[in-house]
């Protein structure tokens, strides 16, 4: 129970400098990346008119997210952003499911991971906005409805980054804390598999989807 307060932090100091590495999170992220690379390689290796199982799964995911992106951004921009949206979902999905396996931890349980992807989505959305509208219109949009409202609009935009990353972080970390505490209270009898199924598989899938959709929608709002 003692590891609850100082949650999952493995910090390494190098030569008295303040470089701190969160080793656990980095290792888990690389596991996810390698697993995705292997999946991509296997799914695309023997492409056929009659798809094998992996190709089918890959085509299904890509089909769903290309459709969603094109619905939100239109035909032309949709093709450009769909690979990103698709990749983001697959990455976060696998990250959230990783905690189901014993001895593995979700990288998304560490605030650094969701926050980086939140900032990435923020920069992408604003880059897309400036590109689509031009810098002048983009800046002008901050002064809606009045010039005085500009600082509040900027705070509102920054709050989006906080909300999107803390939503993922809070759900995944909350789930893992609840699993830890309930397992401790019930002496690891019966309940953990059900809790893992709910918080790992179900909530993990929903939160990965929500994160991806929100990134997509933030881009769509900026572009429109």
């Amino acid at each position, binding site marked *: 129970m*003692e590891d*609850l307060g100082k949650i999952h932090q493995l910090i390494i100091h190098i030569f008295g400098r303040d470089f701190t590495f969160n080793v656990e999170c980095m290792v888990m992220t690389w596991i996810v990346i390698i697993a995705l690379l292997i999946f991509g390689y296997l799914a695309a290796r023997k492409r056929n008119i009659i798809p094998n199982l992996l190709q089918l799964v890959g085509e299904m995911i890509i089909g769903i997210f290309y459709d969603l992106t094109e619905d939100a951004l239109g035909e032309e921009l949709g093709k450009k952003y769909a690979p990103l949206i698709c990749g983001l979902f697959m990455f976060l999905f696998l990250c959230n499911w990783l905690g189901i396996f014993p001895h593995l931890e979700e990288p998304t349980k560490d605030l650094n991971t969701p926050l980086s992807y939140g900032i990435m989505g923020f920069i992408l959305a604003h880059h897309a906005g400036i590109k689509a509208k031009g810098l002048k219109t983009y800046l002008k949009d901050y002064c809606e409805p009045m010039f005085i409202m500009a600082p509040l609009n900027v705070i509102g935009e920054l709050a989006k980054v906080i*909300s999107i990353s803390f939503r993922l972080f*809070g*759900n995944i970390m909350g789930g893992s*804390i609840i699993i830890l505490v309930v397992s401790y209270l019930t002496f690891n009898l019966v309940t953990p598999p059900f809790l893992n199924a709910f918080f790992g598989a179900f909530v993990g899938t*929903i939160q990965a989807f929500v994160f991806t*959709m929100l990134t997509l929608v933030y881009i*769509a709002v900026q572009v429109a």
Partner: protein
Amino acid sequence: MPYDIQTWVKVAAFSGGGMAMGFGAIGAAIGEGHTAACANEAISRNTKLSGDIFKAMLVGQAIAESSSIFALVIAMMLLFTKFPEHVLTVPVLFGAGLCMGLGAIGAGVGAGYPAGSCCTGMARQPAMSGRLSTNMLIGSAVCQTPAIFSLVVSFILLFTDFSKSPVSPTWAAILGAGIASGFGAIGSGLGGGLVAEASCDGISRQPETTTQVTNVMLLGQAVTQTTAIYALLVSFILMFKTFPETHLLAPPMALLSAGICMGIGAIGPAIGEGFAGKSAVAWIARNQYQVADLTRVMLVGQAVAESTGIYSLVIALILIFVV
């Protein structure tokens, strides 16, 4: 007659446990009653389906009940666990009970809405029963997220060792953290329920739009939870930041007010965002060719409704870091 620490810890444990279960009993009961009312209406409309509707009602009520069960777990822990005899244990127990009790209100009421409209939807469109139940499960499970945040904050409060922190501002930070997450969860649970209710309604009205309705429901619910997430953020800062020791009354009060400000400030925006999401989902089911426009208007409207929640966040952060 002076009381020792042990007595105060007991007092805090009992009052915290009482508040946890007392407040925690409000929401789920209302939600379950609403579900049962809708199930009655649905059965009288479509008597042949009474068995299926009855099952859907029970499943929906079970999910609505889960937030109360969280409160029950916390109340039992407060009553039967032996806590360290330290001054800071008193605000910890009080804050944890208050946090979970208040946090269970919104999610309980909210989860009752989709369950109710799932029952009426099954009566209207029996062929969609399967998809309706799935959608209801997803919707009401997402409604529980704010209650889960409260549960997490309560657990962290109960199991973190605060004994090394200075007593003076930390007691206020602990209480503030509990209050922020407790009140902050009320609106989001309720608002998320409104969105999910409209989605079950929409699917039964226009089965073709199921996928779009579920997607936009998830988006709407996610944005509705934003203020609960701000409250969670403020709670985390209050719990994990180390504050310098002080003998003045002002710094602790600033921390306590930060929690109160963020907690109560989160209620309204979340319910407002729930209305925006509800209407967007309901009209996507009626007009499926306008999904992109309706989603954009919903998000922009929700962002504007959320601005008061952002003001609360700004004031809370100023109270913590500046004052």
